[in-house]
């Protein structure tokens, strides 16, 4: 397997006086009670994760659970208290300021919840900002920025100022700006939370469209499980600074590691997420007809519910199990 794009190992971020000392004094792994007793704020505790090239990893969790802090540690906007971060095999924590600047100029991009546009710059200048900072000459960066403006669907708005745009348009500028340098890894901190539901939906589609052409490695923060399901390859759920569970949406739903995680997935339309394969029982001799194991329950439901007997489940041409109407209804209505 090829090398992961970004790796965090045992990442800590504590707020308080001299957190390094405190951490070292407790063997690098103080319990939540001690942290609280000593008056430290644990923003991130012992977080480890790997992100593969081209993957979308979604971070979720209640407000204050440390999502933003984790992402900011990964981009070293915030200095972590302890732990390791490897980016493309390079130790990020050992990187000098100059190296960091270089990394941010060419490999990282970030989109912010409240857009964070420079009010004194036009859309074009905002998008061209990272290039300008790199010292790219005016002609080149203008052409590049215009391309990106078209890409994010703001054609013809290049000479507008941010306050002349709507919220959705502003976030497009923010996205465009973070794309200008063609980053390898893309951090998005609740990029769509400040937008209303309809525009959010639009932007998600837009985002998926972009991703299908760009194939970036993405770390995406959201509060919204629906959004997470639409976008994520894998989802990490955080609580009080700890990563509670990390897995695909399906794994989280079928196999929540705690009530906290279960609470997150509770109101999700499961039929749309669970595959037949996940629900099926052992192969049955009375099975009639067959469905593909990889289809979602929702799309196979009609067939299964109308069948009088269990339906066989096939995978790669082999029968691997069977599924009954009762199993489907249970999943659909969360009986039991």
């Amino acid at each position, binding site marked *: 397997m090829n090398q992961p794009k970004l790796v965090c190992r045992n990442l800590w971020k504590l707020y308080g006086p001299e957190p390094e000392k405190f951490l070292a004094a407790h063997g690098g792994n103080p319990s939540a009670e001690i942290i609280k007793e000593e008056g430290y704020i644990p923003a991130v505790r012992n977080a480890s994760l790997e992100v593969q090239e081209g993957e979308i990893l979604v971070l979720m969790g209640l407000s204050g659970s440390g999502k933003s802090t984790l992402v900011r540690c990964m981009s070293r906007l915030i200095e972590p208290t302890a732990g390791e971060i490897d980016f493309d095999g390079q130790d990020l924590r050992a990187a000098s300021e100059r190296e960091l*600047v270089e990394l941010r100029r060419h490999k990282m991009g970030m989109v912010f919840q409240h857009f964070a546009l*420079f009010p004194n710059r036009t859309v074009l200048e905002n998008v061209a900002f990272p290039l300008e900072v790199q010292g790219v000459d005016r002609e080149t960066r203008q052409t590049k920025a215009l391309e990106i403006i078209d890409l994010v669907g703001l054609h013809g708005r290049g*000479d507008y*100022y941010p*306050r002349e745009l709507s919220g959705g348009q502003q976030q497009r500028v923010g996205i465009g*700006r*973070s794309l200008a340098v063609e980053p390898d890894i893309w951090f998005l901190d609740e990029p769509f939370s400040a937008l209303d539901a309809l525009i959010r939906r639009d932007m998600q589609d837009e985002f998926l469209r972009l991703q299908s052409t760009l194939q970036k490695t993405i770390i995406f923060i959201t509060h919204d499980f629906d959004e997470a399901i639409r976008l994520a390859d894998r989802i990490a759920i955080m609580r009080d600074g700890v990563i509670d569970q990390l897995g695909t949406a399906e794994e989280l739903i079928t196999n929540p590691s705690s009530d906290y995680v279960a609470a997150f997935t509770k109101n999700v339309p499961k039929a749309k997420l669970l595959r037949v394969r996940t629900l099926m029982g052992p192969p049955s001799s009375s099975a009639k007809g067959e469905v593909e194991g990889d289809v979602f329950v929702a799309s196979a439901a009609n067939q299964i519910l109308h069948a009088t007997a269990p339906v066989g489940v096939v995978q790669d041409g082999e029968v691997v199990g069977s599924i009954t109407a009762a199993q489907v209804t249970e999943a659909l209505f969360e009986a039991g």
Partner: protein
Amino acid sequence: MSDQTASETIDTSDAAPVDSPKKQLSGFQKTAIALGPFLVLWFAWWRLGSQKISRTGKYEGDSGALEWLYRTPRTWTVDWFNFAGRDGFASVSYKATGWVNTWFDHLRYEELLQFTVAWHLPKGPWLFILAACLIGTGWMAWRTQSSRWTAGTISLALFGWSANLFDFMQIPPTPWVYVFLVITVAAAIRSLQSREFKWIAATASIGTIGWVALQTNEESFNVKAFFRLVAGWLEFPLDVTEGLLISGYGPWHLPNMPWIFIFALLVGGGGWLAWQRRSATWTISTVLLSWMAAVSLYEPWHIPALPWVVIAGLFGVVGWKLGGWRLALLSTGFILYAAFVGEPAEQVGAETRWDKTMITLSAVLVAVPIAAVLGGFVGLVAAKRRRVEQFLIPLMNLTQAFPHFTFLIPIGVFIGISHKAGVIATIAYAIPPMARVTILGIQGISKEVIEAGIMGGCTRRQMIWKVELPAARQSLLVGVNQVVMECLAMVVIASFVGTAGLGQDLLFRLTGLHIGAGVEIGIAIVVMAITLDRLSQALGQLQPSHHKIDAPFWKRHPYLLASGAVVLGGLLAAQTWEAAHRVPNSWMWGHEGFWEWLVDKGKTDVAWWSLSGGRWLVPLLGVIGFAGWRAWDSRSYRWLITTVSLTLLGWSVKLFDFLHLSSKPWTYVFVACGLTAIIYGYSTLKKLNTTDNEGRTTSGLANSEILQSLRFKVATAVTTIATLGWVALRTTGESFTVNLRDYTISFRDALESWVLLPMRDAYLTIPWVGLVILFGVVGYLINGRRPALLAAGMIAFISLTGFWWQAMWNLYQLTFAVVLAIVFGVPFGIWAATRKRRNAVVQVLLDFFQTFPSFVYLFPAIMFFDVSETAIIVAIVLSASVPAIRYTIFGIQNVPEPLVEASTMAGCTPRQTLWKVKLPMAVPEIMLGINQTIMFGLFMVMIAGLIKTTGLARELIEAQPNIDSGRAIVAGIAVACIGMASDVLISEWADKRKRQLGLIS
């Protein structure tokens, strides 16, 4: 004695509702605790004083045991600043022997200023030590590649040079200057290109070595000379602006031949570049260059100043760009006023008002950018480093409590009396507000924007220039506006150390008591202040908006083209027509005579514009008829008042003489009519009221309508009768001649002999121990030990400076004026805050008043009260009311909307809402306003020293910077102490109260 303690009473009674949760003291108890000891002490010494203490605080009795309580013993103050020998009024022997004075005395004598003497270190050991240090730091700099170590090394080298350690390196300047210059410049260029550390280091070291080796044959380092050298750098920008505005440049004795070619080349090149790059900057440069060339060739090598037409036009264009035609009008108006108003110069070549205005303008134009840049820089550093901020904020609070004059003293000492000394004082005064605003602005940038900058890959420097400063632009420009205002506030005061221009002129006129000319100059300064204020405000509000990228040049740069046109047109006009270059004497108009007349005759005799009958009578009657009809028709009191005023106006110009009635019988008739109307109206009103209360026969609404209409009818009847009576009866008299000044002067005399002088004498007997205790106790009641110690400490400090009775003198003025300002300002603020429209009007007025430099308030005071205590007090009241009103309005409007709604829903009448909800909530803000009032008052007391020096103001102003500097500085500290002591108490209280009310968390 009750009125003397008015301010203290206010402090404590307002402090009373503060409840500490632990022990509940009633307001009365607190007042008693606070005031009791103070009053007892005061009374005791007051009684004592009536026998043994003279008014000026000199103790004449022989019971020395009591003296220390009454007046700080001389032995105490001696050790601090030693103003021994200052025994009140009569004494002139201000013998300065304290260390502050000694120190400044030292600076005064040229030979002691030559710190070289002290610096001259023995070469043997020191050179060795220094060399070792140099090598060490140099090596560190090279290893860590840090600019800090480099700077350290350079400073060390310069230090060694200043102590004459490097004399042996001396080399002859003639060839070596060039050699070093060339090498340094080459290295600098190289380091600019490559930005490699080794080149930067090379530049720095070669430059330093060159300097050290070449400058040793000079007289080495000299503190005063050093300061003057630094100050001398100001001369360049001042020369540039003054040359542009007044004096012109040259004559440059340039050889004719090469320069024509050079100019041709430059203009051609610039024009070509401008065309090639479509660049605005190059266009401007080319235009300027060609102007220089054209004028130089036409009138060889002397470039005259800009003609007034051009300056007026440019101001107009700038105003138009920043704020539309109104601002354009205002700005042009300012220049026109400067150009046309004022006495024409008596001899040829003498400075006219125009010249003086331009000198002041140029000083402001130089001071503002420098102060803004320095203040911005300080603020930027402070915003980035917590340590620096923690150190700077208290320092800035301190400097802002110092009266303006204090800034002049060190500058006068170090730099001497000159034009630039004043400019430097101005800059120094304007830096703190700018720094403050910058800190707020930079820290107020949203965190995300900063992060976006970092993620965009900015280096630290790029962060500052590309992200932080542009994002804080709005607040930085607010800071610039403040700087402009501070600079204008200093215009007059800076002339104490020799700044030329309007301020100096005004100072001379004021001290010579030429009120007329003073007012005229004052108006010029005010107009300038308003213009520059509005311009810089508009600059801050300017929002960029987009225009199409491919729009034609003239569409993108209309203002640039307009200014180009103005410059070209104006220059052409000035070439052909002298009057467009400089306003001829015959066009000038001075109105100082009018003001002189107003003051001297002291009469606002309206009859002097008496109009002759018929022709005017008919239209006036028409207008009166119309207004009366409107009043009757719309039942509007406003129109009623208009009608009455119009009638009185007609009467004042003798239009109604024909109505003349003999007074004897008719007086009775009119009075009788009036009384009947009143009685009839009153009884009907009463009847209506009672039926309303009892039977409710008609609907409430209709009833109240009838009531209102009836009220109006009665009012109309009474006013009509009264006006008619007045008009018809008073025509016989001498018509309308009010001698306002007779009234004001007799009012003043009464006020002074009955109130002010007794109050002053009482204050002069305040025992310092008593006041210290009072402030301490009040502070403790407010918020425990910290404010208590601070406030009491400051008061004790005043007594230790030996300026006790002077301070008390100012304190009495301050108390009286501030109480008046509050009594007037707070109700006015409440009145203004209740209606939106009213509030808008009042806000505009306040803004207007706030742009006045404070000395302006002296004029009306002098006009009506001559130079007297009363005039000072009136001036203080005028200037100090502004913050009282402003903060009251702010406080009332800041009451959370839900609260007001809740109280309205609870059934409060507007009046009840005001008294029960809004006012209690607004009290903390109002107290802050009072705090500001005290500060304004304090500064005004000092500025009033321009016309009459009293108390500390006298110490401040009369102590010339070069004669008795220590005295002025100590007096300045004493003033600051008064201000800060009250500031500590009031702001602590307001803070606490706000927290209790949940206005801040």
